[in-house]
């Protein structure tokens, strides 16, 4: 796993924009998408990431079962009113599409360690499935390969889920005013259309409640809805109490049981269930329990907010934010792959329960944030 450089085409920004990728550079200055270098990885590493993702997915399913069976919702700060909805979505095998594990890779031990699981609202899917693939076509044609069948898997998975939808129309929803979220949602909708599903887009604050069911702006009942909007936000909003009372019992995708996996508390539960598993980092609730090199993370922190790094028991790095009231985990400090250009984290996608693609995010510091750069990759032996 190493960085390699190439000469970018002069019109690469325009080329990306033509594909609908409008946020390659932030504020016209800070690069998000990296065109001129990439991670070269071996086929063996791709195989390792595939196997690790597959194993962790199975471990996560067992962990959800454990949490639900033992009603450990308090550890996750999940309120009472939504717990039955979570249990029903789990028991009924409600449709679920995707998730992304974030891994650290230690250069010396050659070991992957999972940092967290973005199980509810992972983004950078469009960059992975489309932009990264087109980048490979641009510079390598068919001569090289990627670990990236995201596009094929999305269409296949929507096709597989289609018989389990309750109505004729699958709604897609996200916030207004965020190009990144809209691009990701429109990409997912595009793949659903290609799978033969009838779709509609509705912004999250335009969703209506008519006293019996959720509705769209044309008063059409919502029976199935993909939302790029976190469950932990939804359940504290005024309409949340309608979710368990919805006469249509709409399918929310991701389903509400994903609230368990997208919460960092799951990392402590996994460590309890699988102590010393090679893919896991030692993790505890609230206290470091003797660890001196560790990371303290809020249960619901997003984009690296409110994360504090300790080495030798002292703070060496910290990020600001508004999280933490919900509680923390303390996780063993992982060794991140480092190049001259920065520290790298590997994002590994599972779509339709199958590992199918990776992303590299690169940061100047040890904490991965929304400013971290997206680096494409190539498999080369």
């Amino acid at each position, binding site marked *: 796993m190493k960085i390699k450089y190439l000469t970018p085409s002069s019109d690469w920004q325009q080329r990306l924009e033509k594909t*609908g990728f409008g946020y390659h550079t932030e504020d016209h200055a800070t690069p998000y998408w990296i065109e001129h270098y990439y991670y070269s990885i071996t086929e063996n590493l791709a195989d390792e990431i595939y196997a690790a993702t597959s194993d962790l997915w199975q471990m996560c399913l067992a962990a959800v079962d454990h949490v639900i069976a033992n009603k450990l919702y308090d550890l996750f700060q999940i309120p009472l009113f939504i717990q039955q909805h979570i249990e029903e979505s789990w028991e009924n095998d409600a449709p679920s599409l995707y998730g992304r594990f974030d891994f650290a890779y230690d250069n010396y031990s050659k070991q992957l360690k999972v940092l967290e699981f973005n199980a509810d609202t*992972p983004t950078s899917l469009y960059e992975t499935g489309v932009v990264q693939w087109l980048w490979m076509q641009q510079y390598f044609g068919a001569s090289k390969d990627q670990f990236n069948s995201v596009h094929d898997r999305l269409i296949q998975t929507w096709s597989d889920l289609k018989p389990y939808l309750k109505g004729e129309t699958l709604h897609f929803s996200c916030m207004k005013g965020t190009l990144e979220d809209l691009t990701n949602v429109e990409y997912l909708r595009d793949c659903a259309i290609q799978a033969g599903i009838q779709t509609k887009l509705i912004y999250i604050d335009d969703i209506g409640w*008519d006293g019996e069911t959720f509705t769209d702006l044309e008063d059409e009942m919502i029976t199935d809805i993909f939302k790029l909007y976190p469950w932990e936000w939804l359940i504290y909003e005024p309409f949340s109490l309608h979710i368990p009372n919805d006469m249509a019992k709409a399918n929310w995708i991701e389903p509400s049981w994903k609230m368990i996996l997208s919460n960092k508390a799951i990392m402590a539960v996994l460590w309890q269930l699988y102590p010393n598993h090679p893919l896991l980092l030692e993790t505890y609730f609230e206290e470091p329990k003797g660890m001196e090199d560790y990371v303290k993370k809020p249960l619901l922190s997003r984009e690296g907010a409110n994360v504090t790094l300790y080495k030798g028991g002292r703070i060496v790095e910290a990020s600001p934010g508004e999280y933490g009231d919900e509680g923390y985990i303390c996780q063993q400090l992982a060794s991140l792959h480092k190049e001259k250009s920065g520290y790298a984290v590997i994002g590994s996608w599972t779509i339709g329960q199958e590992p199918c693609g990776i992303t590299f995010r690169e940061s100047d510091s040890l904490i991965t944030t929304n400013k971290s750069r997206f680096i494409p990759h190539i498999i080369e032996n």
Partner: protein
Amino acid sequence: MKKRSSKAVSLVLITAALAGCAKPQEEKELKQRVFMRADESAPYTEVTEQYGSRHRGGGMGSALLWYMAFRPLMGGNMGYASQGLAAQSNVGKNAAKANSLKTQTARGGFGTTAKSGTSAS
């Protein structure tokens, strides 16, 4: 080496959006404008759009028209029907009428946590 990447990547939404840019604007279907009012003391309201035959519900499907048509039977001391007659009793099997009698749809109950410029990622 086993191929791991997608065979092809094509998008239909972007294609449709580009095609839509070149599409000539459709002529308005109705030349005649339609106005309605609740009673002789009320101002007229234009309902041309709701009255069009291509409108969802076949022309007479809007909640406004159904409200106008059945308001006298909906109580509120506004019409001729007995106050003892429940509004739902006037619905029968007509789904459009039922929709007009439903509680008014509330919106804005989701999305309050999000701040402008923040992402869900």
